[in-house]
């Protein structure tokens, strides 16, 4: 077996990112969409950690911490918006969220 190089982690990160992108593009439920975004962020975090490990620099991990913080904030606000929207439109289908279109 080949030793686990950071590249393996990078490939893993790329795969997770691709799955997240797929979710964003395909799913109609907006909550699922937001969760796909969380997946993408996680992929980024793995990327950062892998590089931090490779380069022996903790800054990557610090960056990853910040990403987590921001993801949390974004999830909170996003879900708040969705709740507000759901109250008015009774739908979570992203195709029906077009009241700001002309």
């Amino acid at each position, binding site marked *: 077996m080949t030793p686990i190089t950071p590249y393996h982690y990078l490939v893993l990160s790329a795969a997770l990112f691709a799955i997240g992108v797929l979710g*964003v593009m395909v799913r109609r439920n907006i909550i699922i969409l937001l969760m796909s975004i969380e997946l993408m962020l996680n992929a980024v975090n793995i990327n950062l950690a892998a590089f931090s490990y490779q380069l022996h620099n903790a800054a990557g991990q610090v960056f990853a911490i910040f990403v987590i913080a921001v993801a949390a904030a974004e999830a909170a606000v996003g879900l708040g918006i969705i709740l507000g929207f759901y109250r008015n439109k009774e739908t979570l289908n992203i195709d029906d969220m077009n009241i700001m279109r002309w």
Partner: protein
Amino acid sequence: MKLILFIPLLPAAGAALNGLIGVRWFGRRVSGFVACAVMALACGLSIGAFASLLALPPEARVHDIVLGHWIPAIPLETATGIVMFSASWTARIDPLAAIMLLVVTGVGFLIHVYATAYMKDEPRSGYARFFCYLNLFCFFMLVLVLAGNFLVMFVGWEGVGLCSYLLIGFWHEKHSAANAGKKAFLVNRIGDWGFLLGIFLVFFTFGTLDFREVALTVGTMSPETTGFGVLSAICILLFVGATGKSAQIPLHVWLPDAMEGPTPVSALIHAATMVTAGVYMVARSSALFVHAPLVMEIVAIVGALTALMAATIALVQTDIKRVLAYSTVSQLGYMFVAAGMGAFSAAVFHLVTHAFFKALLFLGTGAVIHAMAGEQDMLRMGGLRKHMPVTFVTMMLGALAMAGIPPLSGFFSKDEILYHAFLGNRILWGITTATTLLTAFYMFRLMSLTFYGKYRGPVYSAIASPAAAAQAAAHGVDHPHDARAHGEAHRPLHEVTHGGADADVPPDGSRRARGPQEGPAAITVALMALAVGVIVAGFMGVPQAIGGTNAIERFLAPSFGLGAFPVGGAGVGLSRGGSIALMLFSILVSAAGILTARHFYTRNPEVPRRLAARWPAAHTLLQNKYYLDELYLATIVRGTMAAARGSFSFDRRVVDAAVNAFGWGTQIAAWFSHMFDKHVVDGIVNLAGGTAGRGSFLVRRLQTGLIQNYALIIVLGLFAFLTVFLFAR
């Protein structure tokens, strides 16, 4: 001396008054008075100028007045390089001009007086128009006479041609008169063309057009005794001009037709003044002519031939004015013979005397025609000696002068010419002497037919006789080719009395005609004044051979700066006896002519008829003026008309076709442009618009409004980016 400017200006003022105001507002008396008054004043000023000229010593008898520039300096090329051409309005009076002034104003004044009575039957506006033209003519003639350079003389030359046209065609409703005026002007024009070319050549050679400067310059050149040089070219061209104006062969054809004009016009223009302008011009250019002996010979030969030919034609003419017209042509030939011999003062002398007696003859003829109510055919006159004594006597004096009988003026001037001809060229002397014989003959033929014999005129009867009136009317329509110069042949022939017709009417209402009678005072007085001139004028040229001093030759000598050319009579002349013998010979010739005429026409009237029957061909040839008019018509006139027609059709077919082709070409080009613009240019524009529109249909489909589609596109972009990254490494 400055007053000589008024001499031409006075008639000009008269013409302006009569032409602008008189035609509408003057009555006959005012028009006539204005015209005669200005002429009288001009005559007075001419006499004054002549007298003041006499007061000066002979070398100083020249006076110039420059009135200002006409053409300021224009650089023109001459034989010697570029010269600044400038011409000014110069008036010059010298002995030659002074004599001409006297002739023009004196004879002119008398003719004006005559015309006031002659033209009485014209409508008022026509009367004023006539005197306007007459004064205008005098103005131009005086400009011609007083000219100091060729250009001003040309102005006068053209002006008299114009007035001749206006006056010949005065009765312009008559076709024959209008045509005669046109003919005169056109033939004159041919002469003017030659004259103008001569002027150009003068300038080209000498760089100036002033007479005196040209004379001075040419005096330094030697005469062209061999060959034909530039001086000869100048002189021949100038002579062509003189030929046109003075009716020499071959441009003489207009003068007989010019008799369509009123008789005063014939007297003034075609006897005394305008036709002599050619002689005057040659005399003025004497300095040039003496340097071209070849041209002088041509001048003399043309003059002699003209004199002979015109005299032969005059032998058989029946219209009284035509006889005098051909006589004028003949006498002008005499003057040119003199000029060709170098005897310029003799030519001018003959010009002066001819003016007097020819004017007298014409005016007398006019009186006869007036008395005969427009009849001009001599065959229908006769025996007028009893009816018109004053006219008869004055005309007889004129005829004797014309024939050259001493002591009348015609003898002295004609004899001078014959003398110089004898010295110069015996053949020409022979021709001129033969012409003298013929001249005497036809003049007395005229006198016999008109004044002697039986009265052959129309019958005079009362108005109540319709047969006689019809017969009289039949007489009137019998000779349509006779030029009714009066224009009043439509008047019933029984109204031939002048003036006092109404006093004649008897109580029963019928008019009693009284036949031809003497004219009014104006006419007879003018005739008598001219008769005096005829008698007296000769004495200024009495030759030295018989004890005279030949004053006129000495007076005129300074005007003709003759240097190199030997003049007959100065050194190599005949002896006294020879001169007298020559004179007696010419008197004999004249007397022979007179007696023959008397024999033919007064004693035995059937002789001419028999002669005409014996030689019908010659008779017809002479009667039809050697068919020259017909020749000109067939060749020149027809040729010009054909050329005009050809030009017209060329213009229409070729030039206009070219222009039309241009138009068509432009239209076709425009059509092409239109097509190009519509399909190509607009096509491109439409293509751009269409592409934008059609393209937008496609691109618009990208805007689905679905968020995930947009996310898809983002990922697509990311993919593209990665692809580039992958393959660029």
